[in-house]
């Protein structure tokens, strides 16, 4: 007998949003509900069906999960002429309203991958029912001195493993490149997670700091997970807290995991199993205890 039930859910303004609600056979009312956003332009099943299995796995552990297509993605329609950020916020609010109206939960955890993580970042700030957020491979990560040094050492170490290239540098056949910037190959990957360019750095950082400050004030728990796709952008687990030293208490709200061998879309089954286990562990140990005051 299945330990969960899946229901197609059509909701939101003019019923333009589509999601799948996965509910456990035995629901625990004290647990927050989980909202999994669609990833990039992938539908709500997620890359390699990650969101489907994540929803089922969490439901087997008592969580109700609504995974849904953001407006204009998958089977959800655009809501209006607003920006994708504004429409994303409306969709997240509608999803939370739906589950709260059904009596499923009044607290929520957002999970987003890639651009979906970016939407989560905004959603967690805008709705104080959100008590936690999982950012899987968010596209913007802020650099620190330590990261730049780490990356420089990484590049030097990589070069030392290729003596021929060193010889080419010595003889002038190849320019020296240990600048810490992305390699040409990496630069071609337009979606590579990166620190914002100088032209928008201050503005983007201010926005990020505003959100993180709000999370810290509300004690929203944050879980960042990065794969090898983000190697050039983040090199140690303390980088996010170090990048925002002015935000008091932020470090205690963060869990950061770096899985260097994984790729951006969790292409291996063993990686996906670890991902689900990590999210459950974080929920169990860092989100759920908050309500009881621990």
């Amino acid at each position: 007998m299945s330990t969960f039930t899946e229901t197609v859910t059509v909701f939101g303004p003019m019923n333009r949003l589509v999601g799948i609600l996965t509910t456990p056979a035995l629901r625990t009312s004290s647990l927050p509900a989980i909202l999994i956003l669609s990833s990039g332009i992938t539908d709500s099943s997620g890359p390699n069906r990650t969101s489907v299995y994540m929803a089922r796995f969490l439901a087997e552990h008592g969580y109700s999960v609504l995974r849904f297509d953001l407006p204009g993605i998958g089977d959800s329609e655009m809501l209006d002429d607003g920006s994708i950020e504004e429409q994303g916020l409306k969709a997240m609010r509608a999803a939370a309203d739906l589950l709260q109206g059904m009596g499923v939960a009044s607290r929520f955890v957002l999970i987003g991958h890639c651009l979906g993580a970016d939407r989560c970042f905004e959603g967690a700030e805008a709705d104080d029912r959100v008590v936690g957020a999982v950012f899987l491979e968010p596209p913007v990560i802020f650099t620190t001195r330590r990261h730049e040094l780490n990356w420089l050492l990484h590049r030097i170490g990589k070069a030392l493993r290729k003596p021929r290239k060193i010889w080419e540098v010595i003889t002038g056949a190849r320019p020296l490149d240990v600048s810490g910037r992305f390699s040409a190959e990496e630069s071609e990957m337009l979606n590579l997670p990166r620190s914002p360019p100088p032209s928008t750095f201050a503005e983007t950082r201010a926005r990020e700091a505003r959100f993180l400050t709000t999370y810290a004030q509300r004690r929203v728990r944050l879980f960042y997970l990065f794969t090898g796709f983000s190697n050039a952008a983040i090199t140690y687990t303390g980088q996010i807290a170090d990048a925002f030293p002015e935000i008091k208490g932020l470090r205690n709200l963060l869990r950061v995991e770096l899985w260097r061998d994984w790729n951006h879309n969790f292409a291996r089954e063993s990686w996906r199993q670890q991902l689900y286990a990590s999210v459950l562990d974080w929920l169990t140990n860092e989100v759920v205890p908050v309500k009881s005051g621990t």
Partner: protein
Amino acid sequence: MSAFFFGPPGRQLYGYHHAPTGHAPTAPATGAVVICPAWGQEYAHSHRAVRLLARRLSERGAHVLRFDYTGAANSWGSGTDSSIPVWVDDTHLAMNELKAISGLPSVDLLGCRVGAYVATLACVDRPDVRRLALWDPVLNGAQWVSTKKIKAQVAATVEFDSLLVSTALLEQFRAIGVEKYGAGKPQSVVVLDDDQSRVEELATALPDVRRAFVEVDVPTWNEFARMPARAISTLVDMVVAK
């Protein structure tokens, strides 16, 4: 907006029905089209294109049902529950569902990539299939499999195209051959492909096939890309043609 599960309890298939639009409400529907999607990464990459295809067909007065196979996307099960015979059964369920929704006695089947093969098999012993449309059908399964990554094989499962599936499904994929496209006997068959030679190859198995060769305007199956607008409009014209 019409997303729903259908099929027997415990074996729910995700479906999305596009009702006819763009013609007088009292006018009869021009047809009923069940779309058998691609699979794996090709499914993900083509989702938007297939959604637009369904919408365009509905704007020409057709009922359209998109659905997900067992163990794929939003439907029940895992990859190891998947097999081509199960997907053929799924297609039969989808056909019955759309006939019930539309009130029409017959359906058209439109299959994409591996879904073209599934749709072909689903025509067998189903005289209620009026027309079969094949979009870039996989004609050589072994060759198609060789273009995908195969990783860690454990017991009777294998990671294929980044998804955990049974080794049996992998063998079923490998066994796909052009000669098997002659299995179904719908009233008419149309095929759209970006490879002229493949279209001609298919014509040997289906001599009466009505075919179109469309140069690729944008990639559809191998990456997220812009809409293959020319392919979609050609296909719509072919499917709704009398």
